[in-house]
C-alpha cells in the first residue's frame, strides 16, 4: 500500500481547492468521507492517491435538517444514521430502507451517504484490476466473460451495474445533489447526476475530479405518499444487490396519482422506468395492472449470455413490490 499525504480541510470550498491544487501539481487526489471504499481500493492497488482529502472535520455535513422546502441531508451522514432517522423512516421510507440494506452494521457506522452514492463499481473484473475501460483499458471483460451480475439495460461499452442502494431511492424521491467545486457550487437533480458509459466510460457520475458532493436535498414529503426499497441478494444479508427496486407512489382514493419506479443493479446507472410510471398514473393498482407494469419493466432489456435470469426476476419484483406497496 502506497504512502500518501493526508489533508484535513475545514469546509467544502477548501476541500475542492485542495483537490484542484493537487491535480494542478500533477498529483492524484482522492476524497475520503468514511473512507471504506477508498481504503479498500488503495489496499488492492486499484488507486494510489498522492493526496487524500479527508473530510472528517466537516461537521456541518453530518446533519439531517428538516425545513419548509424539504429535508437537507449532509453528505457525511452515515448510512446507519440515515436508516435509523425517525423522519426519514416515516416520510422517506424508501431511503431509510435502502440505507439499512447496505453491507454490515460495521460498514454502515462509517460509510457515508455521499460515499455510497459515489462508490466505484463492484464488477469483479474492475475490482480484480483487469485493464478494462474503467481502468483506462480498451475492453469490458464481462462481454464475453462472467457476466452473471452485469447490466441488462444501458450497457456498452462497459456493462457494470451501479452498486449503490441509496442512489435508486434518491432518484425515486426526486432528490437534488448540491456539489461544491473550486469555482462555486451547482445543484444537480439525481436524475441527471449519473452518467452512462457511452457518455463517459471513465466515471459513473458528473462529478469533476475537483468537486465534492456535499449535500442531498429532498423535496417536501407528499401527502398520501408511500415508498419502499426491495433488494434481491444471492444470500439473505450482507452483499450487493443482484437486483433492487426503489418505488415511490402517491395514491389518493385508491388511484395512483404519481409513480416513480427505479431499478438498481441492472444498469450502469440507477435505471428509472418512465414507461412503467405512465402505466400506473391515473389507475387503480390491481393485479392485472401490476402484471402489465412488470412486463413493461423488462420490455427493453438486453441481457448478456449469463444474466438473462434478471429479466423474469425484474418482472416479478416490480409486480410484487407494486402490489404490496399499493395494498
Amino acid at each position: 500500500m502506497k504512502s500518501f499525504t493526508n489533508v484535513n480541510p475545514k469546509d467544502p470550498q477548501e476541500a475542492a481547492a485542495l483537490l484542484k491544487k493537487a491535480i494542478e501539481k500533477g498529483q492524484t487526489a482522492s476524497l475520503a468521507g468514511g473512507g471504506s471504499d477508498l481504503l479498500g481500493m488503495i489496499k488492492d492497488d486499484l488507486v494510489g492517491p498522492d493526496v487524500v482529502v479527508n473530510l472528517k472535520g466537516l461537521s456541518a455535513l453530518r446533519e439531517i435538517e428538516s425545513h419548509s422546502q424539504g429535508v437537507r441531508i449532509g453528505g457525511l451522514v452515515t448510512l446507519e444514521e440515515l436508516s435509523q432517522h425517525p423522519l426519514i423512516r416515516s416520510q422517506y421510507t424508501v431511503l431509510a430502507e435502502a440505507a439499512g440494506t447496505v453491507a454490515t452494521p460495521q460498514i454502515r457506522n462509517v460509510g457515508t451517504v455521499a460515499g455510497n452514492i459515489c462508490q466505484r463499481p463492484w464488477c469483479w473484473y474492475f475490482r480484480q484490476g483487469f485493464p478494462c475501460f474503467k481502468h483506462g483499458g480498451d475492453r469490458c471483460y464481462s462481454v464475453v466473460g462472467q457476466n452473471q451480475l452485469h447490466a441488462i439495460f444501458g450497457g456498452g461499452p462497459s456493462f457494470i451495474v451501479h452498486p449503490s442502494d441509496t442512489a435508486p431511492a434518491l432518484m425515486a424521491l426526486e432528490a437534488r445533489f448540491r456539489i461544491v467545486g473550486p469555482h462555486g457550487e451547482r445543484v444537480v437533480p439525481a436524475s441527471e447526476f449519473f452518467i452512462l458509459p457511452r457518455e463517459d466510460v471513465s466515471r459513473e457520475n458528473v462529478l469533476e475530479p475537483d468537486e465534492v458532493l456535499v449535500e442531498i436535498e429532498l423535496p417536501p414529503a407528499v401527502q398520501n405518499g408511500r415508498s419502499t426499497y426491495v433488494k434481491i441478494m444471492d444470500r439473505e444479508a450482507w452483499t450487493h444487490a443482484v437486483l433492487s427496486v426503489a418505488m415511490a407512489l402517491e395514491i389518493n382514493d385508491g388511484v395512483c396519482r404519481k409513480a416513480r419506479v427505479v431499478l438498481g443493479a441492472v444498469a450502469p446507472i440507477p435505471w428509472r422506468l418512465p414507461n412503467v410510471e405512465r402505466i400506473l398514473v391515473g389507475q387503480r393498482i390491481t393485479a392485472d395492472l401490476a402484471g402489465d407494469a412488470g412486463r413493461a419493466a423488462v420490455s427493453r432489456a438486453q441481457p448478456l449470455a449469463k444474466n438473462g435470469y434478471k429479466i423474469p426476476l425484474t418482472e416479478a419484483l416490480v409486480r410484487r413490490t407494486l402490489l404490496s406497496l399499493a395494498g
Partner: protein
Amino acid sequence: MTYTIRLNVNGKEHTVEVPSRRLLIDCLRYDLGLTGTKEGCSVGVCGACTVLMDGKPISSCLALALFADGKEIVTVEGLAREDRLDRVQQAFIDYGGFQCGICTPGMVVTAKALLDENPDPSVDEIKEWMMGNLCRCTGYYKVIESIQGAARRKRQAGDSDEGL
C-alpha cells in the same frame, strides 16, 4: 508521511506516530500491543476485527488509524475489569459461544454494543445486529444463545448491575 494522532483506547489516552497508510487494526496490535483484536479477511467482510469507535462497531481493518484520530476506541481487552470478565465474555464461555475462537473478540464487542443499546433483543434483532460477524466454524446458534444469556443476566441484575 507520518502523523501524530491521539486515541483513547479502553479508557487510556495514547499519542501515536503513524504512517499515513497505517490501518487502525495494525495500530492497535503493533503500536499499542493490543493483540486481542484479530484480522480475518482484511477487506471488511468478516467482522473479526470489530472494535467500538465512539460506542459503535466498526471494522478496524477498513479504517485508517488517521481516521480514528481523537476517537474513543474499545477493544476486547477493554471489557473485563481486572480479573472479572464482562457479562458478555462470561456468557460466551458458559453457553459455548465459540469454537476456534478467531471471530470471538469481534463477536463479543459487537454483542456488547448491542446490549448497551437494546437490553432485551429478540433473536431476529440479534441476527440483524450480528450479520457482519462471520463464524467460519458456523457456530451461530451458540452465539445467539450466549447473547440471549448475557441479556438475561443483565436484566436479572437490574439496578444492582455493576456494569459487567
